[in-house]
């Protein structure tokens, strides 16, 4: 039986982890490579890096991080943040990323999703959708959640599937950083209308939220950042908890 995945996400800025794990035995708490290795040794099913480097001069730092990580971690590695072109995707894949997530550029230019999924295969194209409730609908936001687009997130999700995305990473802007749980309605609605896997993101504060994301939100995978960063729970504890709730996980 296919297992539900737990994906810890690390925010990386100028090649350094922002909000890293606070383990005393860490040699360098800001080193993304070392943190990724801790996650993969702990049973993470995938690792996700979100590059939040703002300045263009420092954009190359992520390539070295990906290169080093892919030599030490032998689970899938997804990298997103600032991906604008086929060339950006190519560079990340050549450095050792297994999947690349596209956010703003997918909204601005759906052709990029079509072209890159044809060129590299759907399996490595993840479209990341940031959505916020606006009245009765969820609206797509871009530029790290700063710009609204007027686009209906559910319709956009369907469109991205048609364009060739292999997976969708859905983040609820309302829940992100709140620790009150995923937006289950949003996850469930999107997961029900598309046939590719949904990765739920935004709002995890405890292990029951992961359970809800899978059981109620129908997500194939759950992504979380802060509950793992601060050592509140380990990936192993999260998996054992999911297992105790009857959710199939790789243990």
């Amino acid at each position, binding site marked *: *039986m*296919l*297992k*539900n*995945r737990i994906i810890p996400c690390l925010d990386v800025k100028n090649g350094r982890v922002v909000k890293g794990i606070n383990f005393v035995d860490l040699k360098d708490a800001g080193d993304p490579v070392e943190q990724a290795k801790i996650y*993969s040794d702990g049973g993470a*099913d995938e690792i996700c890096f979100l590059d939040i480097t703002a300045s263009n001069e420092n954009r190359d730092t992520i390539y070295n991080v990906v290169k080093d990580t*892919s*030599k030490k971690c*032998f*689970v*899938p590695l997804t990298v997103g943040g600032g991906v604008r072109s086929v060339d950006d995707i190519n560079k990340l*894949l*050549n*450095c*050792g*990323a*297994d999947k690349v997530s596209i956010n703003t550029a997918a909204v601005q230019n759906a052709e990029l999703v079509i072209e890159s999924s*044809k*060129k*590299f*295969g*759907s*399996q*490595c194209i993840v479209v990341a959708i940031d959505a916020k409730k606006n009245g009765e609908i969820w609206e797509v936001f871009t530029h790290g959640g700063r710009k609204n687009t007027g686009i209906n997130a559910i319709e956009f999700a369907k469109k991205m599937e048609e364009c060739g995305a*292999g*997976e969708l990473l859905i983040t609820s802007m309302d829940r992100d950083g709140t620790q009150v749980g995923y937006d289950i309605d949003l996850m469930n609605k999107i997961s029900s209308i598309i*046939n*590719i*896997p949904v990765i739920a993101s935004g709002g995890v504060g405890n292990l029951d939220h992961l359970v809800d994301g899978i059981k109620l939100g129908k997500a*194939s*995978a759950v992504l979380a950042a802060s509950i793992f960063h601060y050592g509140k729970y380990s990936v192993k504890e999260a998996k054992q908890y999911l297992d105790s709730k009857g959710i199939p996980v*790789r243990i």
Partner: protein
Amino acid sequence: MNITIVDYNSGNISSVINSFKKVAQNKVNIEVTSNLKKIKSSDKVVLPGQGSFKSCVDALKNISGLVDTLSEFAIENKKPLLGICVGLQMFADIGYEETETKGLGWISGKVSKIDNKDGKYKLPHIGWNQINIVKESKIFKNIKNNSHMYFVHSYEFIPNDKSVISSTTDYSTKVVCSAEKENLFGTQFHPEKSDQIGLKIIENFINL
């Protein structure tokens, strides 16, 4: 020993390279090339493959003499070859992804879309799933039955002769996830992304 990972522009092979280099350390020489001479003189060959069946077959054919060199290596000289993902799928006679495309015809059979039971099962089949080992395979030495492997695919290899199947995995149906016929080995899952247990399979292939 020389192992060649065939680089034929089939998409992203850096994870395959990293995993083989990690296992090989300095004991085995890992080449990444499409150079025909180097392939001919190798002891073992790894044929990765990402993207569609058609795009991989087209990419192989685009390099003049490559298909013949690989056939000579694997079929005439019977040297060990490991196909990964679409690399395995191309062993078949024919594939149906995008459009009907002829494969290498090394193990007779076809490559068809996984039955998603009218949308009940999501495709691609992405993530970790357990393998049921159905016959002894040299690359599964010290690999426990029901081990987890990482998969990402929508199509599966269906060989005519079921005795070449070495493992299956339970999804919408019993999906074929590895095959072995004499010197030919293939995995639908990605050993290079299947953590320590996947590296063990790579080690088994290197140690054949």
